[in-house]
């Protein structure tokens, strides 16, 4: 996709989106609702025409090609299975339209149904299937004609949590088995992080960052990405300067000196935001002894929330800036959490990432 923009009346849904789907990859479009991820998918599928820009497929201009001629598989939100056809008829439909001979059609339908784990469901009615099974039929139908791109529009949003996990691992398996490129739309960051080869994070019709999941999480390009993917503490730091090591920077948080990571290619502005993930932060009742390896700040506990395996603590410093810290329950018990008490908060030098924008 090249410089694709889409406007609905006065509303700009997409502005200059550039997206490149690589052969066989699992690319996730992640963003809050209304961020343009679904519109992007619909532009790829051909159900929305871009107001500007082009959609290219292997060098061919697909921008004004109708959906039925693109030959991409699409899995819709709510599955969109044909209610008046059986499971096998649904899956066979793209082959019937393509005038594939009966014997081969039946062979392919059977093979695809067993790939998605619905071996003996050919004659079942759609209405008699569970949500997860309908999901599998929708996948089989979108893949049976061998598309080289599969587009999935929030396919798991209607499933309960347990089933969702099951379908996620199924999807990974099917992706690896078939080698088809998948473009997957979701607003669920965990889903995006665990499934994808690459993630494109959308916000307000723009792509904020495209990168591998670990890079998205550990080196967010913008404050939006840092806050949307996972939880984080964004600290206003000053006097940022490089320290020789291409990855490391020197900065000040208030009067405290901090060593942190940052982008390799460009030195961030002197006044930047520092993203510190809650799981990197430790809480201590007294000033930690091995202080030379840690960035440490004195704080007061505002409140703590129990999550079973972990506890989230909300802390404030003298300047009333707040921090979120996630501790294992065991660790929290050892430290002894008491609202209003003073603690030391620390994270290792060289963790925390300076967000460029």
């Amino acid at each position: 996709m090249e410089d694709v923009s889409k406007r609905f009346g006065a509303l700009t849904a997409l502005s200059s989106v550039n997206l490149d789907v690589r052969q066989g990859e699992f690319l996730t479009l992640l963003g809050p609702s209304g961020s343009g991820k679904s519109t992007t998918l619909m532009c790829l599928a051909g159900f929305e025409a871009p107001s500007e820009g082009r959609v290219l497929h292997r060098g061919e201009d697909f921008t004004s090609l109708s959906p039925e001629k693109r030959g991409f598989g699409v899995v819709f939100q709510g599955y969109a299975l044909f209610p008046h056809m059986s499971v096998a008829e649904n899956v066979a439909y793209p082959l019937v339209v393509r005038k594939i001979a009966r014997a081969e059609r039946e062979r392919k339908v059977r093979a695809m149904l067993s790939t998605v784990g619905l071996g003996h469901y050919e004659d079942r009615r759609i209405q008699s299937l569970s949500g997860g099974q309908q999901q599998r039929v929708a996948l089989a139908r979108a893949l049976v004609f061998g598309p080289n791109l599969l587009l999935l529009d929030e396919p798991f949003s209607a499933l309960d949590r347990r089933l969702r996990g099951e379908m996620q691992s199924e999807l990974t398996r099917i992706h690896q088995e078939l080698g088809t490129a998948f473009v997957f739309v979701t607003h669920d960051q965990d889903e995006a992080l665990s499934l994808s080869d690459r993630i494109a994070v959308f916000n307000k019709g723009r792509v904020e960052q495209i990168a591998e999941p670990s890079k998205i999480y550990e080196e967010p390009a913008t404050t939006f990405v840092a806050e949307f993917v996972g939880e984080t503490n964004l600290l206003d730091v000053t006097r940022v300067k490089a320290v020789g090591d291409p990855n490391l920077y020197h900065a000040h948080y208030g009067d405290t000196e901090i060593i942190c990571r940052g982008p390799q290619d460009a030195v961030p502005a002197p006044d930047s935001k520092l993203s510190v993930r809650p799981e990197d932060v430790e809480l201590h009742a007294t000033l930690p002894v091995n202080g030379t390896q840690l960035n440490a700040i004195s704080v007061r506990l505002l409140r703590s929330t129990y999550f079973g395996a972990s506890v989230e603590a909300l802390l404030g410093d003298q300047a009333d800036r707040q921090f979120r810290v996630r501790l294992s329950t065991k660790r929290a018990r050892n430290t002894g959490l008491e609202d209003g008490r003073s603690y030391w908060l620390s994270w290792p030098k060289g963790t925390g990432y300076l967000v460029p924008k």
Partner: protein
Amino acid sequence: MATRDASWLGFSLALPLPTLLVLAYLLPLAGVLAWSMSTPGGIGFGNYRQIATDPLVVSILLRTLRICVAVTLISVAIAYFLAYHLRFGSPWKKRVVLIGVLIPFWLSSLIRAFAWLMILRANGLANTFLQSTGMIAEPLALARNELGVMIGMTHFLVPYAVLPIFSSLQHIDNRLIQASRSLGAGFWRGFKDILAPLSSSGVLAATIIVFIFSLGFFVTPAVLGGGRVVMVAEYIYLQMFQLSNWGLGAALSGILMVVVVALMLALIKIVGIRRLMDTAS
């Protein structure tokens, strides 16, 4: 004792409607059916025998059937087209179709019939326009024949067919159409495989509703047929009120009613009474 009082009260509160139906509808209807078996002369099936054998009556019944079938098919086809745009069209298109469908509801059938007569008659709007542009030399016979009657009836019936078809299209998820296209089906292929089967119950309901309505048409054929296209309703009127041949009129009414009731039962069986009420509202 208290409960018996309450149920008696409920029963008596519900009583006025059945009473009204029996007094104002069923009793007179029984009277009409009694005429068909008793007048003129003694008790017997003479009137029904006449309907089956009299060439004039048979030809009127056949004409009624012919016109009603043709009008029903044409109306349902036009209505499908309109309902499709009402469901899938742009907001602007939807508004135009909706206004076009609703306005005729507010005009009486008599006014509409005369309006069509103004347009279709020999020196009416259509013929004068076509003659002034030189497309035809002689006026076309558009009114005072079956064609005129069919045009007028179709115009009347299309809105009634739009609603059930629209309702069935409304139940079809737009994503099903998108899915068929993403799977390689073009517009007509998707229409044939997805839209048509999923909207067939609405089409069937529309067909039966329109056909039932068309059987009872009286004013439109009388005005636009100019006395030459007599259909069964007008013929019944002639027998009853002009010729005082009450027996034959009553027998024809009875047959018409049996046909309509049978069609209604078929409609309810196909669509289900609940869906039908939904459609109507």
